[in-house]
């Protein structure tokens, strides 16, 4: 036996577990090793305790009991925290589930863009402009959550009315030309109606999460909209594929603002001036970000002549008014819009053009 093994025999001294040979080896080592001798003396107390039959019986009884397991509260706490964090992350990601965001290329001159040729052209981009127009190239924007559904299914794009996507006359500083016309596949609040969709772009938020979303916020379109046509039963449905507008139709616009603020709709008159259509007074209807609003209250009648409309979003931050969801009105109705405001706007043209 090595010295280490002999020292290990110390554990058997108090319980009288050692054989004669083991005891002999242990004691001989203890005679020459003061430390081992001291340890043996220390064991003497345990030996005397175990020599007492009552104590021995009680200790044996204690050994037969199941082991006392410490409640590892910290383990459960850590696990619960991890689960909560995971749920939170999933919830955040889920809430940022994006819709298809389409960014059309704005030509240098007003050109009517046919959103989709056929139903089977889904996921195809809008015909790209000539390379010379690359400066107005499309811009990927962060997709926004849908107020009605998070269904990301990409439906066949319906044919829309001849919506002309044009450049507004003096573009506001906050909005570049490439941002001015954007058609999205955002479903409306009422149902998961199909939308006019031109191109599917994964958003930065999809890729980079919240950070990417924050970074790309400045690139968001001010609003996204869908034309709704009044059906026979009086309800408003997105334009069906292959169906255009004709004189006498009534349309409304489903608008999805990307930030809270005030929304209003204007129409360009023959003199080129923009006249308020909806609401008649006030700064606009107070809207919350990423919620669908159908405007105007009364539908727009499609006439033989094309109507140029402008959807304007005045962010609450720009006018120092928090979004409260209340419609505020001004004492005097605003008939005309004069000086350019810091608002963001999108122009569209509605006319009796049939979809090819």
């Amino acid at each position, binding site marked *: 036996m090595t010295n280490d093994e002999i020292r290990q025999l110390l554990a058997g001294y108090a*319980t009288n577990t050692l054989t004669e040979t083991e005891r002999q080896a242990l004691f001989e080592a203890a*005679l020459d090793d003061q430390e081992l001798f001291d340890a043996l003396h220390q064991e003497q107390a345990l030996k005397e*305790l175990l020599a007492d039959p009552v104590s021995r019986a009680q200790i044996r009884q204690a050994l037969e009991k199941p082991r006392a397991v410490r409640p590892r509260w910290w383990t459960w706490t850590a696990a619960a925290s991890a689960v909560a964090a995971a749920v939170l992350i999933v919830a955040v990601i889920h809430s940022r589930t994006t819709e298809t965001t389409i960014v059309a290329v704005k030509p240098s001159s007003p050109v009517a863009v046919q959103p989709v040729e056929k139903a089977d052209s889904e996921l195809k981009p809008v015909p790209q402009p000539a390379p010379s127009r690359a400066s107005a190239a499309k811009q990927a924007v962060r997709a926004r959550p849908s107020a009605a559904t998070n269904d990301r299914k990409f439906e066949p794009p319906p044919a829309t009315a001849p919506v002309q996507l044009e450049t507004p006359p003096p573009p506001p500083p906050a909005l570049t030309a490439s941002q001015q016309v954007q058609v999205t596949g955002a479903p409306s609040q009422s149902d998961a109606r199909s939308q006019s969709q031109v191109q599917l772009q994964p958003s930065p938020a999809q890729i980079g999460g919240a950070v990417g979303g924050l970074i790309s916020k400045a690139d968001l379109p001010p609003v996204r909209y869908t034309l709704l046509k009044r059906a026979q039963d009086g309800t408003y449905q997105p334009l069906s594929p292959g169906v255009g507008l004709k004189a006498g139709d009534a349309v409304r616009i489903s608008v999805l603002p990307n930030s809270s603020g005030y929304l209003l709709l204007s129409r360009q008159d023959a003199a080129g001036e923009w006249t308020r259509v909806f609401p008649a007074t006030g700064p606009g209807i107070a809207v919350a970000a990423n919620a669908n609003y159908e405007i105007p209250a009364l539908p727009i009648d499609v006439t033989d002549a094309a109507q140029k409309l402008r959807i304007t979003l005045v962010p609450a931050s720009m006018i120092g008014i928090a979004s409260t969801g209340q419609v505020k009105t001004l004492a005097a109705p605003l008939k005309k819009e004069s000086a350019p405001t810091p608002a963001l706007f999108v122009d569209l043209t509605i006319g009796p053009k049939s979809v090819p």
Partner: protein
Amino acid sequence: MGPLPSGSAEKAARSSREEILEKLRERIVGFAASRLQRDAAEDLAQEVLILLHQKYGHLERLEDLLPLSLQIVRFKMMAFRRKTQRRGEYTQIPVDGIQVPDGAVDPLAAAEQREMRERLIAAISKLGERCRKLFALKLEGKSYAEIQTILGVGSIKTVYTWDFRCRKNLMELMGGGWEAGK
């Protein structure tokens, strides 16, 4: 080599015993000196040897002498502490307050043992399953060889190692020693 004459065998045995006692004295002094003053430690070792010589003169084997000396040392040290207390070396006690021994079990020793038992039981409840099993087998009187067979361990050295670690673990659970504050 032929058998030793009877006188020579007796002489050799006596010589061996004296050798063991000499080593024991050295160890006892070394141990006691770590807890008492050097003079007191030497006195204590001398008292142990006198007792071994006078009362246990018939014991010659190390396996008998060493455990006995350990027990005597332990008792002597406890008595020494009590004696120094009575003498007022640490606390002044009036003569009237000194208790007369009644021949019954020493209440101090009994209290210490009871306390140690409770601490041991509490520590055992925190031991791992293997150590509990090992300790239980030892208390059943099983030898290491038998424990090796019961636990199905390949080598008895493994059992030694396990038991040594369990002892260390148990001592740590009891605060570093079997007896509180010692």
